[in-house]
């Protein structure tokens, strides 16, 4: 297999944007090309676009070709859209990785984009029901918050995890987002603000949840040879894993505080990279809800099962701790433009491992992890390193 590296990355401003779907593609694509002066759109051989619900929110399908045209890319090796709910972006990165590793392409862009606030956030809430089973779940009005709330209830009952510990994830990620000018929220949040914010689904309050966000992100992947020719600081893909436990809530592990698919995906990525959780300097984890970040600490091996509450409370997932989790602000602080999220996570690891993250730089970051999930039952993990 060929080595594969990230050689460029760019992110649009995230938020409730007065911008079209195509505007967002332009913003992220230009930022990505600006990061890679040696690459012009005509050089790119492939494009994968992660996007979940443009059929309703932009009233548009056939979006990989739309994006290629907007970006000035004329794919010759790979052109595809990935729709895999909230993990669409990282699933797209895995496709591009596999094509390059197999020798079928040398330079591929992966772009994630979502325009959710169109005409209002209510449209996105309606559409979020398409991510769970229509017949057996969504017909009752189920969307994401109650699913993760069930996990939070169980984690609190089994391990004594407190509402305050859940809130501390919100405080940390909102605080991190103050150093990210592209984040949806940049004002931070105090513990009181999080604990007093309105209840969404017991026990998850508003500031423990990711918001409905418009945004886009792009990364450029290259074969080893091409990467070394383009930059003296490639960010290498070291490992990857994906695993499915189940789709319907009733197919998952009976105890919703256990996410065996994440453990399996992480195990595969660690084995491939020949590293362990203690080697990870920063992790972009899928904090769609605060409980997801806590369970991710455990399943990724940063702490033991049941110890995530004390782990965040002791600052061990913050600067100066064991591993800096969600330095860009996570989904809670940056927002969660579904298809863009996984790509934005990779873009953050790219700037962190190159020492270009400015005010939010993790000191001497050498190994970065991304975790992107589609519900509680399906997880994708990537490991990136400064060294090949």
């Amino acid at each position, binding site marked *: 297999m060929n080595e594969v590296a990230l050689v460029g990355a760019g992110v649009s401003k995230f938020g409730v944007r007065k911008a079209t779907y195509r505007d967002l593609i332009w913003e992220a694509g230009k930022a990505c090309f600006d990061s890679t002066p040696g690459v012009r759109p005509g050089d790119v051989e492939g494009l994968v676009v992660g996007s979940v619900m443009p059929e309703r929110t932009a009233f548009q399908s056939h979006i990989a070709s739309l994006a290629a045209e907007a970006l000035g890319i004329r794919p010759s090796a790979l052109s595809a859209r990935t729709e895999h709910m909230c993990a669409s972006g990282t699933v797209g990165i895995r496709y591009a990785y596999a094509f390059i590793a197999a020798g079928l392409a040398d330079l591929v862009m992966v772009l994630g984009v979502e325009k959710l606030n169109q005409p209002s956030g*209510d449209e996105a809430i309606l559409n979020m*029901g398409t991510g769970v089973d229509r017949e057996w779940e*969504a017909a009752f*009005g189920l969307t994401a*918050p*109650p699913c993760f709330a069930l996990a939070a*209830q169980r984690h609190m*009952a089994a391990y004594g995890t407190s509402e305050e510990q859940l809130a501390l994830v919100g405080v940390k990620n909102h605080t991190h987002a103050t150093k990210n000018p592209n984040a949806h929220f940049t004002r931070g949040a105090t513990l009181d603000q999080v604990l007093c914010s309105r*209840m969404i689904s017991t026990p998850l309050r508003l500031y423990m949840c990711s918001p409905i966000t418009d945004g886009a992100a792009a990364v450029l992947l290259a074969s080893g040879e091409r990467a070394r020719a383009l930059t003296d600081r490639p960010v290498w893909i070291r490992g990857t894993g994906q695993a499915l436990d189940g789709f319907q809530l*009733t197919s998952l592990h009976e105890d919703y505080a256990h996410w065996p698919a994440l453990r399996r995906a992480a195990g595969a990525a660690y084995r491939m990279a020949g590293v362990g959780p203690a080697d990870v300097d920063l992790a972009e984890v899928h904090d769609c809800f605060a409980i997801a970040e806590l369970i991710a600490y455990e399943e990724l091996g940063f702490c033991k099962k049941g110890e995530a509450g004390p782990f965040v409370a002791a600052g061990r997932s913050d600067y100066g701790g064991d591993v800096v989790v969600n330095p860009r602000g996570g989904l809670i602080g940056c927002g969660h433009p579904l298809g863009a999220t996984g790509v934005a996570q990779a873009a953050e690891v790219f700037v962190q491992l190159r020492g270009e993250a400015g005010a939010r730089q993790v000191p001497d970051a050498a190994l970065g992890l991304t975790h992107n999930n589609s519900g509680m039952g399906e997880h994708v993990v990537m490991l990136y390193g400064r060294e090949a």
Partner: protein
Amino acid sequence: MSYFRAIDPFPLESAEQTKLHEFYRHLGEGRLVTTRCAGCGATAWPPRGFCPACVSDRFEWVDLAREGTVHAFTVQETGLPAGFEAPRVFAIVKVDGHRVFTILTGADPGAVRVGQRVALAPLRVADDPTGHPRWLPAFRVASP
């Protein structure tokens, strides 16, 4: 031009439209049934089109208990999709060893407890576009 958002959030349940129509017909009669594989005898929840264990598609419909216990629940207070009222008690109910996803209707959200006994309470929702009645497998707190 007003924004056009008409969309049907409920399943297709009639004999013309789904292989699982027997499930819905029984539900309308107050019974919770599911598929048992005639090949290997495995009972599935929810009902299935073919058996993942032996790949047989010969099934018989068997009754599940009309009562169960709350395995997990949450009360959603805000952020429900258009057409669904808050507060809404989403629950996983254990029925004959199967976990069934449902809502608890008529429950005091503050009084629901894990382990509580609940009973099947089929919920009539909007008819399908041809006028066929439709039901969802909801539950209610059981009488003591």
